[in-house]
């Protein structure tokens, strides 16, 4: 019986098939392609779960998989590159596959209620877009080399563009789609340079070594580690020192990550992306596509660990973005906008975790965030259906009694987001902050200071997170209804409530995957995620692939010199850090309750005055980027165009105009008057005779 790993490509192929079916045959199907999508993602989910079970060792024999499938560019000369497609399955991959296929399935079911039942048109295109997106995201997750990952990264960005701009006949969506595409593309440009750099430096883009019949093909994190230990003569470093060059490569790839995961400064596209349908926002801009950037860093973590500078920058960007976006979320009036800024902020936490060496924390937060953010978006979708697509929270209110399923699941998600025990967000966010704290205290020099600074920003963001989350909950569901639609909302059906219920339970329970504080206190080995990414202590997949947690921790200690320091002793620091973050979150929640948990809340943010204008305008980042495009890029483009048309085209035109000019002068010889022709002939004859006289009659 073939193992699960033989079917891993099918995990991406099934949604791709659904894409093709929806595109060509969707108009003939009763649900316009949704059936194909639901079946395909259900199949992918089953296969992903089977793969995860195989990786866990419960079924099948092998626990990891790394094979190259297809050589699409064969390098012939010595030292020439060969470009391949391949599949890598390790615990991280298996986890992400399950997350992506589960959320995709739930979003497909939800779309039946949000799109089909609302009588939207053009649905085959919608389900085709969802299918293509799911296929590319899954293929990105199991890519085994960075170039293949880049290709699917771009494809995912394309699907995002297509889906944001779904209602392209209005003004907002196409513009938002264009903005999303351009901003992420800007980051991806640096990513591409980074990919080329990695391929040029190491000769391979593999994330983990591949065993072939003719030996082992090393991966680039391995080669990089080797170069740092033994000396970098074997690889190309463009004249820089080895570690400097690797920092540069890491930062180039980070460009794409920052764009895709909507970190500062390339975060401006995500709030505008809310113009797309809410299920799209739930799938793409909450749980999966924006996770691609963070997943990429986690995938090549062995490479990033070799460069403390890159890690510091990642941590700083993460902490800053977490705080920055959380402040903006506090003043927003539309439901989805609050959630968009919340997404930006939470991905900041994941970057903070990765930067400060908390690999498990980052992966854990990625998992929990996928669940509760998708839940919150789907809940928002349910509210939007009820409110006849009016998103303004100030027109809502009192929906609690009228939409109980939505309310309780939304509340579950909000508690998870705010980080209140025992919901999922508490355990993961707390672990992120804890890792940042101890590595900040333990590491010496600038790096430690950076970590502590980022930790402080992340901690402050916890307060704001609690505040904006519960402001959102109170304004939407509590109090008196503030408009007619809120008094009489449209009911939603099982296809909306079902996914909400599933995710609601998930948001409450998925935190139990890795309850580190409880594990430490009681000595029980219930930190399952930790064990999942750590693998067996000896042999197995960590040794074969070098992507295990133990390997990362060794690198962290030996190469980056990041150590954990417990200012108050190990257990006490843990408990104090948990208490502080929980306390801040509760403070935010209670403040929101006092301000907005009344029957008739008012816009208290008006009291902020000038600060509110700044926040409402998103710190003028959008205007700044537009200025960059119009004020800086357009003149440069114009100058380049002038050069192209004047010099390059001018040379070509000049050649032709020279010949035209010569021709126009020459043709006057043909005057039509016979006597002129005779004169020319006579002169030529005389000249010829003179030439013969001079040359002595020729040979």
């Amino acid at each position, binding site marked *: 019986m073939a193992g699960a790993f033989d079917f891993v490509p099918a995990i991406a192929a099934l949604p791709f098939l659904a894409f093709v079916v929806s595109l060509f045959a969707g108009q003939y199907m009763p649900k316009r392609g949704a059936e194909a999508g639901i079946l395909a993602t259900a199949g992918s989910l089953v296969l992903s779960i089977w793969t995860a079970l195989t990786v866990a060792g419960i079924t099948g024999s092998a626990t990891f998989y790394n094979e190259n499938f297809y050589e699409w560019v064969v390098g012939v000369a010595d030292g020439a590159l060969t470009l391949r497609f391949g599949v890598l399955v390790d615990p991280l991959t298996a986890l992400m596959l399950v997350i992506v296929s589960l959320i995709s399935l739930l979003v497909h079911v939800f779309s039946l209620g949000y799109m089909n039942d609302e009588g939207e048109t053009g649905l085959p295109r919608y389900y085709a877009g969802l299918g293509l997106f799911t296929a590319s995201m899954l293929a990105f997750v199991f890519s085994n080399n960075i170039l293949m990952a880049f290709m699917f990264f771009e494809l995912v960005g394309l699907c995002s563009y297509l889906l944001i701009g779904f209602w392209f006949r209005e003004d907002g969506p196409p513009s938002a789609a264009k903005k999303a595409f351009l901003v992420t593309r800007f980051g991806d440009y640096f990513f591409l340079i980074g990919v080329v750099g990695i391929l040029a430096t190491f000769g391979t883009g593999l994330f983990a070594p591949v065993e072939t019949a003719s030996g082992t093909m090393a991966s680039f994190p391995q080669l990089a580690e080797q170069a740092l230990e033994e000396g970098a003569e074997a690889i190309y470093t463009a004249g820089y020192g080895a570690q400097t060059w690797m920092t540069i490569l890491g930062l180039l790839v980070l460009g794409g990550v920052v764009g895709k995961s909507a970190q500062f400064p390339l975060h401006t596209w995500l709030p505008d992306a809310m113009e797309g349908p809410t299920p799209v926002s739930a799938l793409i801009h909450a749980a999966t596509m924006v996770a691609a950037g963070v997943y990429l860093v986690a995938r090549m973590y062995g490479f990033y660990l070799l460069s403390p500078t890159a890690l510091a920058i990642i941590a700083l960007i993460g902490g800053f973005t977490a705080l920055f976006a959380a402040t903006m979320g506090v003043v927003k009036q539309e439901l989805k906008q609050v959630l968009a800024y919340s997404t930006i902020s939470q991905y900041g936490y994941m970057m903070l975790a990765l930067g400060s060496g908390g690999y498990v924390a980052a992966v854990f937060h990625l998992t929990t965030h996928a669940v509760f953010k998708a839940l919150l978006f789907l809940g928002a979708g349910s509210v939007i259906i009820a409110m006849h697509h009016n998103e303004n929270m100030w027109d809502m209110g009192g929906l609690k009694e009228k939409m109980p399923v939505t309310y309780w699941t939304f509340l579950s998600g909000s508690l998870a987001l705010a980080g209140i025990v025992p919901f999922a967000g508490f355990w993961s966010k707390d672990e992120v902050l804890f890792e940042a704290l101890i590595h900040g205290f333990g590491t010496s020099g600038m790096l430690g200071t950076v970590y502590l600074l980022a930790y402080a920003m992340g901690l402050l963001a916890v307060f704001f997170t609690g505040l904006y989350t519960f402001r959102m909950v109170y304004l939407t569901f509590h109090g008196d209804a503030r408009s007619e639609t809120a008094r009489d909302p449209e009911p939603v059906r099982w296809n909306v409530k079902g996914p909400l219920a599933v995710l609601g339970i998930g948001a409450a329970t998925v935190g139990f995957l890795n309850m580190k504080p409880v594990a430490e206190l009681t000595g029980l080995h219930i930190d399952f995620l930790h064990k999942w990414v750590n693998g067996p202590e000896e042999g197995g997949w960590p040794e074969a692939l070098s992507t295990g947690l133990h390997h990362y921790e060794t690198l962290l200690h030996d190469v980056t010199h990041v150590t954990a320091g417990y200012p108050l002793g190990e257990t006490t620091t843990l408990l104090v850090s948990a208490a502080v973050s929980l306390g801040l979150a509760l403070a935010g929640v209670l403040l929101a309750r006092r301000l907005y948990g009344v029957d008739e809340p008012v816009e208290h943010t008006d009291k902020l005055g000038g600060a509110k204008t700044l926040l409402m305008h998103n710190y003028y980042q959008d205007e700044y980027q537009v200025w960059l495009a119009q004020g800086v890029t357009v003149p440069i483009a114009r100058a380049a165009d002038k050069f192209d048309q004047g010099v390059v085209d001018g040379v070509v035109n000049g050649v032709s105009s020279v010949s035209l000019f010569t021709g126009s002068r020459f*043709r*006057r010889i*043909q*005057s*039509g*008057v*016979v*006597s002129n022709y*005779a*004169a020319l002939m*006579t002169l030529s004859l005389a000249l010829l005779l003179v030439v013969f006289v001079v040359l002595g009659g020729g040979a």
Partner: protein
Amino acid sequence: MAIATQYYLLLSAAVFCIGVYGVLTRSNALIFLMSVELMLNAANINLVAFSFHYGNLTGQVFSLFVMALAAAEVAVGIGIILVLYRNFDDVDVTKAATMRW
């Protein structure tokens, strides 16, 4: 005492160049034809001179043929001038300048 051949050649060159002068400067098509005749006859003089120089009659026979050809050419030339007159209403060669760029 025979006249040196150069003088015959000089005569032939002079007649030829008078013919060329006529072709170059005159605008009447009939005068043009007459000049062409002059050129042909200059060639004849040349041929006969060389026939005497080498003592071979080929030159003279050839010049007879040239004369016959000149006659044929003039016949056709007159026909052409007739058609030219029909189309341009004038025998001025400088007026018939439409076959140009």
